[in-house]
C-alpha cells in the first residue's frame, strides 16, 4: 500500500529548487524561502507565509453553537466575529450559524472534534481544506488596498471581526490577530485559488521589499 502524502495547496506557486521543503502536520510545505536574516527583514516590510497545514474543522446548523459550547469551545457571540480558545486555536463565526475552527500550532483540537460523539440534529459537518495565509508588516495595508475594495485598516476592522470579502476576485475570509506580541492578518481562500492568490500577494509583497517567508517566523513552534 502507498501512504498518501499531503502537499500544500499552494505548492504550484512555489519555485522549484532554491527553497527548503519540510513536513508539518503531515503536509509537505516550504519551510524556508531565503536566508533567515532576509526572512526576518521581509517580515517587517510585508511578509507572507503559508499556514495551510493547520488542521481545520467546520460545523453549521441551528444547534451548532450549542454543540460547540458543549464540547468546551468558546463561541463568538456576534455573527462575523472570532474568538480564541485557551490552547490558541481559533473559532470563527461565519455569518449566523456556521463555524470554522483552526488548530493552534501543534494542537489537535480539530481532530478531537471530528472524533466526538454523533452530532445531534441541527449540527452538520462542513469539510474545510482551504489554503491559508499569514500576513504581516508595515506595508500590509498597501497590499489590501491593491487587492480589495473595502477598508481593512485596523480601525475599520474592530478587534474581533471576521470579514468575508474578495481579494483580486477571489472570495476570502480575513481576520486580524495579535500573535506572539505582533499584529498579523490571517486569510483563508478556496484551495484551488491558493496558488493564484499566493502569486498575487507575494508579487505585491516583493514590490514593498517583502516577500514569502517560512511559517517559523510567525509560529515559534515551527522554528
Amino acid at each position, binding site marked *: 500500500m502507498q501512504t498518501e502524502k499531503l502537499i500544500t495547496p499552494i505548492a504550484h506557486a512555489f519555485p522549484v529548487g532554491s527553497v527548503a521543503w519540510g513536513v508539518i502536520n503531515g503536509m509537505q510545505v516550504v519551510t524556508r524561502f531565503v536566508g533567515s536574516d532576509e526572512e526576518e527583514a521581509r517580515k517587517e516590510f510585508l511578509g507572507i507565509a503559508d499556514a495551510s497545514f493547520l488542521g481545520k474543522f467546520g460545523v453549521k446548523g441551528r444547534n451548532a453553537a450549542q454543540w460547540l459550547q458543549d464540547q468546551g469551545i468558546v463561541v463568538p457571540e456576534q455573527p462575523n466575529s472570532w474568538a480564541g480558545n485557551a490552547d490558541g486555536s481559533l473559532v470563527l463565526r461565519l455569518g449566523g450559524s456556521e463555524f470554522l475552527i483552526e488548530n493552534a500550532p501543534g494542537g489537535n483540537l480539530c481532530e478531537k472534534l471530528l472524533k466526538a460523539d454523533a452530532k445531534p440534529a441541527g449540527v452538520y459537518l462542513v469539510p474545510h481544506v482551504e489554503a491559508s495565509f499569514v500576513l504581516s508588516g508595515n506595508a500590509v495595508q498597501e497590499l489590501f488596498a491593491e487587492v480589495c475594495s473595502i477598508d481593512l485598516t485596523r480601525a475599520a476592522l474592530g478587534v474581533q471581526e471576521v470579514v*468575508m470579502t*474578495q481579494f483580486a476576485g477571489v472570495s476570502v475570509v480575513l481576520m486580524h490577530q495579535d500573535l506572539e506580541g505582533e499584529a498579523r492578518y490571517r486569510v483563508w481562500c478556496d484551495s484551488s485559488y491558493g496558488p493564484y492568490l499566493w502569486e498575487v500577494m507575494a508579487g505585491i509583497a516583493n514590490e514593498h521589499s517583502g516577500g514569502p517567508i517560512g511559517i517559523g517566523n510567525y509560529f515559534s513552534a515551527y522554528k
Partner: protein
Amino acid sequence: MKLLTCPVNGTRPLSEFVFGGECRVPPAADCSDKVWADYVHNRHGAPGIKQEWWYHAPSGTWFIAERNTLTDQVIRTFLKGQEGKQ
C-alpha cells in the same frame, strides 16, 4: 463602483454579489400545464420596483433586495423572513 448592502456583511462592491432573479412564488403543484409553463418561462419584464434574490459570494449569504429596475436604486435589503426587522 456600484455598491450593495448585504444584511449580514455590510456594504460591498457589486462584484462580490450574484444576481438570482426576481422572487417568485410557484403555482400549486396540481396547476395546469399552461400555468406551469407560464411560471417556468415568463417573467415580469417591465421595469418597476421588484424584490429580487441576491447572493453574497464570499460568505454564501442569500438575501432579498428591493430595487427599482429602471433607476437601479436599491430601496432596502433583508434576509428572507426578516422583512420587518431592522
